[in-house]
């Protein structure tokens, strides 16, 4: 084989890989767009969590300053598990996962497809929760830096979450198990995201109060996307 055919071969491979990812994402989004069950559940749940926090923590102006970041991330984390569970359970229940696995594509493409669609759901929910929260508590949450933190945090959360959710749906205890598996290992993401968001909301110094946390988020996202990429094969293997 000449080097030229090798290069085109690789190109074809890459193209089919990204095509497979796009197909999985598209399938999930189309299904969700028609049923809207996952999205509406996540959204209503998030709003309820904020409502509960409002009374549990007495969110007056003073406490709001210090707890907003925490309230937001607890809300995202809980709504996130709801979404992750549902998105994998749908695949499992109707035997779709087997169908997906039979497809002659790299398994990693399935993982990335699922992870990206989960990320999209989470981001849509966040995109609605943020303005609602801003409106209710007269805080401007639309700062570019804060949005970046939310994006990075969500990527980390979803990258491990998708892998663990595909493990959890294959066990007897199923949805109960996901938060128990997920929360102890995403603690770095939650801590850094809360700290970085808090830094932005209280107007902290960028280099000392925000940057270290963003670095942690970046490192975590990279490491765990890589691990999930390498181990997903073992999780869905029959």
């Amino acid at each position, binding site marked *: 084989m000449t080097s030229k055919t090798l290069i085109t071969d690789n190109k074809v491979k890459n193209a089919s890989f990204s095509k497979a990812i796009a197909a999985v994402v598209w399938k999930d989004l189309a299904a969700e767009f028609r049923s809207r069950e996952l999205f509406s559940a996540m959204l209503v749940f998030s709003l309820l969590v904020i409502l509960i926090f409002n009374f549990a923590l007495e969110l007056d102006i003073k406490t709001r300053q210090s707890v907003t970041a925490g309230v937001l991330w607890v809300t995202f984390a809980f709504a996130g598990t709801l979404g992750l569970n549902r998105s994998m359970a749908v695949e499992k229940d109707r035997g779709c996962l087997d169908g997906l696995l039979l497809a002659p594509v790299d398994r990693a493409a399935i993982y990335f497809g699922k992870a990206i669609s989960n990320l999209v759901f989470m981001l849509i929910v966040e995109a609605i929760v943020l303005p609602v929260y801003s409106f209710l508590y007269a805080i401007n949450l639309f700062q570019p830096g804060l949005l970046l933190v939310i994006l990075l945090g969500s990527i980390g959360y979803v990258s*491990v979450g998708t*892998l*663990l959710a595909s*493990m*959890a749906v*294959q*066990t*007897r*205890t*199923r949805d109960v*198990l996901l938060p*128990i*598996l997920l*929360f*102890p*290992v*995403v*603690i*770095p993401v939650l*801590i*850094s995201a809360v*700290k970085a968001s808090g830094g932005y909301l209280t107007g902290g110094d960028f280099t000392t109060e925000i940057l*270290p*946390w963003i670095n*942690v988020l970046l*490192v*975590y996202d990279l*490491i*765990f996307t890589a*691990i999930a990429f390498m*181990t997903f094969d*073992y*999780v869905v*293997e029959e």
Partner: protein
Amino acid sequence: MQTKPTALKILDIVSVLLLAAATYLALFYAPEEAVMGQVQRVFYFHIGTAWVGLLGFLLAAIMGIVYLVTHDQKWDIVEMAAVEISLVFFLITIMLGSIWARPVWNTWWTWDPRLTTAAITELIYIAYFMLRAGIEDPDRRARFGAVYTLIGGVSAPITFMVIRLVRSIHPVIIAGNDPSSQGTFAMTGGMQVAFFFGLFAFTVIFIDLFWNRIRLGNLAAKVEQLKLNITN
């Protein structure tokens, strides 16, 4: 029927003797610490158990990788043995630490990096066993267990560093002189003897338990196989 290997029997006895000797050194031989007094004697076992917990934790993560590469059931048994021992020893470490912290830090618990990471590691281990309990197929159970120990093994150090960015008052006994930590002390000769002997004793105890647990795991796998043969 498999009888217990003689070497293991001897190791059992040696472990018990070493534990007794380490107890003697920690409680009577080592001099009393000037500031903290008798309660500081908890330190010798606190470090010993923490060391064993850490050893088990590292072994478990490595065995997870080895299993995923080789797909040999025996590594799964080794991995589970490591997790189980580490779970128990970290729990002992946390309890001993609390006993030490109450008079020295004036609190049973503080959200310091080491304490928090140890607690989170315990939660990861509990999740690990809940995950295993929910799967019947031994092959899948082993695969999921291996993947989860790998994830836990990577995430726990990151958790540690992250919380370290937040704060720390835990003393660093060896090569550490952070002025903000409370309860630091310098080790004198007698203390060092008790300390290093404690580490040695707990390492031997770890090996002994590890060996016994692997043996138990092998026997359990055999029983499971025999049961399957009967039902088929």
